[in-house]
């Protein structure tokens, strides 16, 4: 169980069904709803939407503590609890941290740093990578790594794959594979198009695979010593890291994933005062990242990052404008044609999983003329993920997403390096470990095949 609805608390308003892209929420209006796990993609949008809270008036004085216990939520939590909720793995994290034999490595997704402050009263979309690193360090992780680094690696792998498919005549269009809910959705509903999916793993899994191999090597450890934790804006990442195939190194790429909200709970639970945390750095070398890595957090970000690098891969020239604005935006489906030398690369960006259906149907009907399509399940990409700080009022939603998006782009602009292939950490990885993108080892560790339903 990754995402669930508590039958005792659900009022049956079916507002969650409105936002569920997978039509997985079932039940009569006014009656408690259930999630059809065969359909559910675990995106957590229902969790974000649900306002049916555990109420003293409706459920009694005792209910709150009882529900908290049931859900494995730290005792210290006092905030409202709702009918729709995701799994909480903080107990596993705490256990690993307490285990002296475990070398704990944590990675943190790009969208976490533009949102977690909100749960401590910061303004919406406050950019806090420094505090985030500091908090993780105080929690006691041995290595504070960053998913932005494997995001840069993803670009190398996926970008190379794309160039190959385009130039050598592979299956097109190619879809991105970094959104696990999208991958799950395709597996559930369109297994026949699996070859269109990039074989590259998601940044979380790439990071996990590297930390337990090259990373372990650097720290003089083995993959068995390492306990790998990821902090994700996403409820589905919990599912993804548990997928059976995600252990190509012989060890699970990622041992446990928690959400942004889980991390906020953990910080509070440990009595860490967010407001007074200093700005700190992520650890070397896998804490080094480029602007391209960080924009993975917003819709169109993967595409933009891929184009920044792909342009140079194909033409040998730097892209004229690093801000690839044609692929930015928040519309559910956007298309652009990017001139890369002689090649006119036709790309599409889908955000909000419901919007992918007409795209797939068009593709199957042969009316879709695109090379590369980014798909993100959540409304505006990972910044609006199911594991992100939850808004008390939907009226603030648009403002929150916009602020988180803007903070992401600000972060990108202010970073010294903005293209994945320029990252010294990426260079180091290929120079010292993988040799080159899509190398045999890279393929073994960082690529996978899906549809193992």
């Amino acid at each position, binding site marked *: 169980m990754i995402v669930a609805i508590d039958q005792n608390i659900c*009022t*049956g*308003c*079916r*507002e969650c069904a409105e936002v569920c892209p997978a039509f997985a929420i079932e039940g009569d*209006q*006014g009656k408690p709803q259930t999630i059809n796990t065969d359909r559910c993609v675990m995106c957590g949008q229902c969790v974000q939407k649900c*306002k*049916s*809270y555990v*109420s*003293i*008036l409706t459920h009694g004085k005792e209910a*709150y503590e009882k529900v908290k216990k049931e859900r494995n939520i730290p005792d210290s939590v*006092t*905030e*409202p609890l709702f009918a729709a909720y995701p799994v909480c793995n903080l107990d596993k994290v705490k256990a690993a941290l307490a285990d002296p034999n475990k070398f704990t490595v944590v990675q943190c997704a790009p969208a976490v740093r533009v949102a977690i402050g*909100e*749960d*401590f*009263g*910061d303004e*919406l979309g406050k950019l806090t990578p420094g505090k985030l690193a500091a908090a993780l360090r105080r929690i006691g992780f041995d290595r504070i790594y960053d998913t932005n680094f494997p995001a840069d690696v993803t670009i190398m792998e996926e970008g190379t794959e794309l160039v190959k498919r385009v130039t050598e005549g592979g299956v097109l269009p190619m879809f991105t594979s970094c959104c696990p809910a999208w991958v799950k959705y395709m597996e559930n509903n369109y297994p026949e198009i699996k070859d269109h999916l990039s074989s590259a793993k998601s940044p979380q899994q790439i990071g996990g695979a590297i930390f337990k191999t090259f990373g372990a090597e650097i720290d003089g450890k083995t993959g068995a010593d390492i306990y790998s934790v990821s902090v994700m804006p996403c409820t589905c990442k919990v599912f993804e890291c548990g997928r059976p195939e995600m252990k190509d190194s012989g060890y699970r790429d990622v041992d446990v994933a928690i959400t942004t*909200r889980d991390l*906020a*709970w953990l910080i509070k639970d440990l009595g860490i005062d967010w407001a007074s945390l200093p700005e700190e750095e992520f650890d070397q070398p896998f804490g080094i990242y480029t602007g391209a890595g960080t924009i993975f957090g917003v819709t169109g970000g993967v595409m933009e990052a891929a184009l920044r690098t792909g342009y140079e891969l194909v033409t040998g020239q730097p892209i004229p404008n690093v801000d690839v604005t044609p692929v930015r935006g928040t519309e559910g489906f956007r298309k652009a044609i990017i001139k890369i030398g002689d090649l006119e690369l036709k790309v599409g960006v889908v955000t909000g999983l419901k919007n992918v259906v007409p795209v797939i149907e068009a593709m199957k009907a042969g009316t879709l003329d695109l090379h590369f399509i980014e798909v993100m399940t959540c409304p505006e990409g990972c910044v609006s993920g199911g594991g992100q*700080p*939850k*808004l*008390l*009022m*939907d*009226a*603030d939603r648009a403002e*929150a997403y916009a602020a988180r998006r803007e903070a992401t782009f600000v972060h990108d602009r202010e970073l010294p390096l903005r293209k994945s292939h320029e990252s010294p950490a990426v260079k180091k990885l290929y120079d010292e470990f993988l040799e080159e993108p899509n190398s045999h080892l890279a393929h073994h560790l960082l690529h996978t095949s899906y549809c193992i339903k």
Partner: protein
Amino acid sequence: MKKELGSFVIGDSTKCTGCKACEMACFTVHNQGSNHVGKTVGTVTVPVVPRLFLTKFEYGCMPIQCKHCENAPCLNACTKGAISRIDNQVIVDPEKCIGCKDCMQACPFGAVTLLPYAKDGKVVAQIGSNETRVFASKCDLCKDVPGGPACVRACPHEALRLVDPEAEREEKNIKAAEALLLTKNWR
């Protein structure tokens, strides 16, 4: 012209899905200052105490809230002077409320309920006991909230409406008169 009557918010059970967005918005705006509630759930440290109450009944559900009665039985019942009329609205002063329940009994709509009282991000304990202090929680029409009643704005289905009784009466008068024009019913 100065308004003579208290406005109020009214729910529409034909539109309400029971999502409680109204309750949550109500709680949020009333605790932004006093209890440091921000925009996300994580900033909440006190129990959710709404001032309107989503009510399920045999034919559906709708929020029930204070009508700001002009001879408010709650106000007339309150011997502590904790309920007063400010700018036409019936307002509870939680500091003065002793939780006697007289107002709850007096209100024919069930629009007042005793709920935990929190201040500065913490529930307040009673003097002389560790029990939580309570207060008569009821709609104050978001008197201090810019933009007016939060519940109305929060509802995803426009199932809540702010009623200005004087303006609405006039509108209905006009509608009734102009309906005559369509039917020529007087001839």
